[in-house]
């Protein structure tokens, strides 16, 4: 069978699977019989269309996305610096270990409540995205540093290769795939935890506030519509980060 035929078949199966689950959803909505408890796909589509025509939706999406991405980027920078420090110093590595463990295991809700007490709810999602994102990136980078080719590092040492050349030619090409994997995973988690934090902290004009209103009004059509918007934003930002990292990897490979 030709490759294009197999690909077309796969697409057809995937479309059928989506249609199947939409049908299940529709039947479940009919069985529940109340759109506030379980909206049908059509009602969600209507809600989504209505939300997309409201200027406030874009303001909320931009505000939440900006703050979550800010927290993610701060986490990325912090994780890179921490991993670099940990690779050079046992003290830094030992100091980082409990911090990373705590950030990974403490529930998001605990961090959110602490953050509400300590900082303004406005920057809540940034702070939570930072706390949730940096350990994931740090652990991936630490793994990459652990698997670095030590023979190449020895070569660079004997030939006295300057720091910047070592960074761009030796270290970054080896670490970028680990950084990319960590960043992509972390960004997805940042979106989930960032929006959850906004729902608890209810900062004005954000996706979290909109979701909180949905919760108060028990209107699942809007809940699903906002969820679709969040997933779309998460996928879009992940694709952007992945694209930038891939570009970086290609540039480094082509140096």
């Amino acid at each position: 069978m030709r490759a294009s035929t197999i690909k077309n078949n796969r697409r057809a199966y995937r479309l059928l699977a989506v249609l199947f689950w939409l049908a299940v959803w529709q039947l479940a909505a009919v069985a529940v019989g109340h759109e506030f408890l379980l909206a049908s796909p059509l009602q969600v589509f209507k809600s989504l269309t209505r939300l997309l025509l409201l200027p406030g939706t874009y303001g909320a999406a931009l505000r939440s996305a900006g703050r979550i991405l800010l927290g993610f980027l701060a986490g990325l920078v912090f994780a890179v610096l921490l991993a670099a420090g940990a690779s050079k110093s046992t003290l830094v590595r030992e100091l980082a270990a409990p911090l990373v463990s705590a950030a990974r295991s403490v529930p998001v809700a605990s961090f959110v409540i602490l953050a509400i007490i300590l900082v303004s709810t406005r920057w809540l999602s940034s702070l939570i995205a930072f706390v949730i994102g940096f350990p994931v990136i740090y652990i991936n980078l630490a793994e990459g540093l652990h698997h670095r080719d030590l023979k190449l590092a020895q070569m660079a040492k004997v030939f006295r290769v300057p720091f910047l050349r070592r960074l761009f030619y030796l270290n970054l090409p080896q670490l970028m795939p680990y950084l990319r994997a960590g960043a992509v995973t972390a960004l997805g988690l940042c979106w989930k935890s960032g929006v959850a934090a906004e729902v608890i902290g209810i900062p004005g004009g954000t996706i979290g506030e909109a979701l909180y209103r949905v919760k108060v009004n028990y209107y699942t059509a809007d809940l699903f519509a906002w969820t679709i918007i969040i997933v779309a934003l998460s996928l879009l930002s992940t694709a952007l980060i992945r694209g930038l990292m891939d570009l970086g990897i290609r540039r480094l490979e082509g140096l």
Partner: protein
Amino acid sequence: MDALRLHHVTKRFGAQTVFDNFSLKLPLGRATCLMGPSGCGKTTLLNLLMGLVQPDSGSVTTLHPQSVVFQEDRLLPGLSAFANLRLVTGRGREQELTAILTALGLGDAGAKPVRDFSGGMKRRVAIARALMADYRLLLLDEPFKGLDAAARDRAAQVIKDHAAGSTLVMVTHDPHEAGLLNAGIIHLPLIENRQAAGAD
């Protein structure tokens, strides 16, 4: 004056002792070939000279700067031959780089990624890199591994021309290769047979 001096060096890797109270000195500006059976510590000796391993006791005094052809090529596969050389030399020596690659029979391949090279071509890039670096002590760990006879003789001539006046230490299993570089030979026996090979 000695180019390098190992003074009562002991080196163990776990339970295996590679050098036990071993001493060696080599004269400045000469080529020396270290020969011996596998496991006698030839590569460890080069690593001690490069500071890549430290002796458990004793001292190592050696010339700097150093350059090396490692036992493995240790090239960056995504980079071209030129870029692998530039990693060590920096920019601004393009004519020299072209000349050395041409001398080694790689004149047309310099701009291609090393990952596309055969084993012998990679070996010659590793030799070119070692010769283009600044050095007073050139260390060669089986530098002609994977080269056919013609390429080996050509590479040996390039090394001899380029490294004239420098101190050169080569590890090999082949006495003919020592002859190609006009190198004196030191045999390193296995440790159980070693009492004073090349000793003070």
